[in-house]
């Protein structure tokens, strides 16, 4: 159920796009209205989520660390694992955002050894597939700028040239297309094959994977197999970004609308799903805090001003009575030493 529901949801979205454009002739809806709506939801939703997080106070210093904290000068501290200053946090965050450093420590429990012992082993494939997936997604995202800009920025032809370096077929095979398919397939298969991961996998885990797989497959179909008139496609995208939306005169194949619709769903779904980790990774307190609780006192932002009564004030108030009762006091009543202090 956790697998089939999102799978059928994505298939239904594909069918919806095909029927909507070819059956109901709603190409204006799928080509103009939905893309704009999805983009606005994405941008507004992401900003709202980040603002929401930023309004939540972080009561404690809770960086998750695994290194020697900065303490005495002769004890070697690890400023990347447990940063005590902003430079360390930036370094740690950069390694996390660009290379998924914490995932590199991923382990996997296995009970299938000969002696039926629970064994924890290093598991790097999730890290590798995750890294491959995210980087190729960014690469493909940037490559698509050729449909959205005029003149096309200098780095886009460079990215395409590098991607099509093997010069296989025409249009040239993009290596990233293969990598993203392989990586997302791995991420799906991993959730299906490992019993403990499958047990904790929800529809919300499979849906983005199937959706992205659908986007990749429709894009690959459109580039290599069921080609569409790309000049008309760019005329449409450019009319969107110049805010003068207009459907091109020539027809565009249904596979384009499937591709576009799935992307729109991804964009609109983004702020409300696990995918917000794109913004969330920067705001996770266990990563972005300095581990300097021994240097700087962390004050809970929601502490309200407490009216307290110090011992000195208490003694001042009751000194006479305390002395009268024979209790020890720190300051004697009305002695010259009080002024000397």
């Amino acid at each position, binding site marked *: 159920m956790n697998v089939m529901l999102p799978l059928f949801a994505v298939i239904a979205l594909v069918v919806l796009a095909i029927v909507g454009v070819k059956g109901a002739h709603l190409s204006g809806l799928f080509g103009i209205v939905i893309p704009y709506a999805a983009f606005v939801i994405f941008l507004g939703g*992401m900003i709202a989520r980040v603002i929401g997080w930023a309004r*939540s106070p972080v009561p404690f210093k809770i960086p998750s660390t695994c290194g020697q904290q900065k303490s005495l000068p002769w004890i070697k501290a690890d400023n990347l694992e447990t940063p005590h200053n902003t430079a360390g946090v930036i370094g740690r965050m950069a390694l996390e955002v660009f290379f998924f450093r914490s995932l590199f420590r991923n382990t996997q429990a296995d009970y299938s050894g000969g002696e039926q012992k629970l064994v924890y082993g290093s598991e790097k494939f999730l890290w590798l597939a995750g890294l491959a997936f995210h980087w190729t997604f960014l690469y493909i995202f940037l490559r698509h700028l050729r449909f*959205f800009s005029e003149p096309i920025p200098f780095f886009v032809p460079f990215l395409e040239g590098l991607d099509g370096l093997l010069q296989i077929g*025409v249009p040239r095979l993009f290596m990233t297309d293969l990598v993203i398919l392989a990586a997302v397939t791995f991420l799906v298969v991993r959730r299906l094959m490992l019993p403990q991961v499958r047990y904790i996998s929800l529809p919300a885990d499979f849906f983005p994977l199937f959706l992205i797989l659908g986007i990749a497959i429709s894009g690959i179909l459109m580039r290599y197999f069921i*080609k*569409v008139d790309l000049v008309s496609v760019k005329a449409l995208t450019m*009319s969107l970004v110049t805010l003068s939306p207009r459907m091109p005169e020539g027809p565009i194949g249904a596979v384009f609308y499937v591709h576009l619709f799935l992307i729109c769903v991804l964009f609109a779904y983004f702020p409300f799903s696990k995918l917000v980790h794109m913004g969330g990774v*920067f705001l996770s307190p266990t990563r972005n805090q300095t581990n300097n609780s021994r240097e700087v006192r962390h004050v809970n932002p929601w502490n309200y001003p407490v009216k307290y009564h110090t011992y000195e004030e208490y003694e001042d108030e009751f000194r006479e009575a305390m002395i009268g009762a024979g209790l020890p006091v720190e300051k004697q009543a009305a002695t010259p030493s009080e002024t000397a202090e």
Partner: protein
Amino acid sequence: MLYDAGKIIAGLVIFAAFFTVPFWYGSDKTSEMPKLELTAKAKQAGQCVEPKEQMRQNHMQLLDDWRDAAVRDGNRTYTNSAGKSYTVSLQNTCMDCHANKDKFCDRCHGYMGVSELYCWDCHLDPTKEKNLWASTDGNS
């Protein structure tokens, strides 16, 4: 209230700027499609090797097949979907009509950023090497 407001707003500005690049970047943005110029000979021919829609979408595939047919298999004859035969040759068939590379090929390829074409690694680029251009047609 917003904690770390400066950092949050800076981050959001970068985020919004990154995702709205298509809206603010680019001075030559227009919703117009590039206009192709057909030579007199192309206009007179009326139709390309295959129908126009098919050529728009699949010309690269056709050229790749032609390259393999001519160079690898030595097959210089192509029969189109209507049964008409053509000589498999970029320079003597395609560019016989479409001699104006700069006003035909390059218009869309430039628009779409198809810049890494290696057609002209082997074939003569008529806009650059006019003296060597072998076409007998003088309308370029």
